[in-house]
């Protein structure tokens, strides 16, 4: 208990600050992943000439480990395209890249699974394709796919532990740093693991509750 007070409670500021960085990285990455994933799905479905490009992008994102992507984005991209300029940006870019591949597949199956009649009846009312997508297709896809989309957020939060490897000061980074300073891994790493598990557990319970409600409403 003495060690716990000395090592964990004294450094609670650092740990909670790290938790805040984790939340920021995950949130930015997820929003970016939604946009990229939706764009990739649209290109994959509707832009004929770029279809294989989008397909390659999606498969590359899905089939590369997040750790490898992090190193790649952080150490290769700046020299090739002059961006990202900070490890924080590299962290959320890599996380977004990975998730956008999965989300693109989710969006694609959602759009393809939509009943043809929805689109046809919109066209018969004279709605142009873009308006049909925005008003008719997209709202239904987002609603139907919301459990899968939100589960991807859990994956982002869990993968975000790895941004500590490229020196983004998230919770895991501070936990490992404090372990090296105090040489008391038991307390620090256990508290860190508990914080992560609690966070993910709360999120997944919320998602499950939402999914059950959806199922009750739409069957």
């Amino acid at each position, binding site marked *: 208990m003495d060690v716990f007070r000395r090592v964990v409670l004294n450094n609670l500021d650092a740990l909670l600050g790290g938790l805040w960085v984790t939340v920021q990285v995950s949130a930015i990455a997820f929003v970016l992943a939604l946009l990229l994933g939706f764009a990739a799905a649209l290109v994959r479905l509707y832009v004929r000439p770029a279809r294989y490009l989008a397909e390659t992008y999606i498969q590359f994102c899905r089939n*590369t*480990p997040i750790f490898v992507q992090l*190193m790649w984005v952080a150490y290769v991209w700046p*020299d*090739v395209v002059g961006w990202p300029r900070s490890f924080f940006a590299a962290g959320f870019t890599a996380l977004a890249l990975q998730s956008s591949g999965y989300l693109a597949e989710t969006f694609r199956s959602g759009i393809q699974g939509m009943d043809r009649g929805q689109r046809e009846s919109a066209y018969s009312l004279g709605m142009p394709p873009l308006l049909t997508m925005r008003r008719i297709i997209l709202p239904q896809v987002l609603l139907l796919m919301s459990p899968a989309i939100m589960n991807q957020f859990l994956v982002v939060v*869990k993968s975000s*532990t790895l941004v500590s490897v490229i020196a983004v000061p998230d919770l895991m980074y501070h936990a490992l740093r404090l372990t090296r300073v105090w040489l008391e891994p038991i307390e620090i*790493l*256990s508290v860190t693991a508990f914080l*992560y598990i609690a966070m993910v557990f709360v999120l997944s319970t919320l998602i499950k509750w939402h999914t059950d409600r959806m199922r009750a409403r739409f069957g």
Partner: protein
Amino acid sequence: MPPPTTAGFDFESLRQVFDFSYFWSYREVLLSGLLVNFLVFGFAALLAAGSGFVVCLLRVSRSRAARGIGTFYVELFRNTPEYVFLTWVHFVLPLVLTRLLVTRVNFAPTLSAVLALGLCYSGYFAETFRTGILSIPRGHIDAGRAVAMGRALIMRRIILPQAIRRVLPEALNNSVSLFKATSIVSLIAVPDLMYNVVNVVQYEMRPLPLYSSAAFLFFAILFMLSALVQALTERWRTRAWG
């Protein structure tokens, strides 16, 4: 972060991204690293499938306590980030065991890696197996009972042979994810592919071609593995296995 050498797009750097000569000249050490990846994957997959199966039996058991333990196990390991669990198993678990057993316990990095990844993914395997078992119609169990088969016999002769076929595609998908996760074991100094790549980068000071080749290599392997799983799944479906 060091400032980039160029402000915008740089053609020379792009050429380096597709320069595989560094990777080729270090092929021996890199291949031995890849072998470590496959070894860790193999043992972790065995552990994950084995303990996943046991936990799945707990979760479909009649006893409420056993179900509770199974649910707790699954929720715990599915909600734990792999990297956090990996460091916990490597740095904390040996110390805890040392205090409990009053003998000095030390885990080799490879052992920690297999334990951590195996346990982490056993939660996913348990859920996959459980959906397979639950997908067998109730009538099959009742029919088994009607011919006086015991619970264990029904499980072994009627449920499992059908359930295994149904869950095989999803179990293979879990295995592909597990292989993808083995790239993080380099962070506790298991000499796998990424560990060797990072070492070579520090020696050669050439991050562009080396990290890019590593990414492309992982992509090639994982793409082929998941394509293989998909092809097998299609084949089993056309044979009306599922």
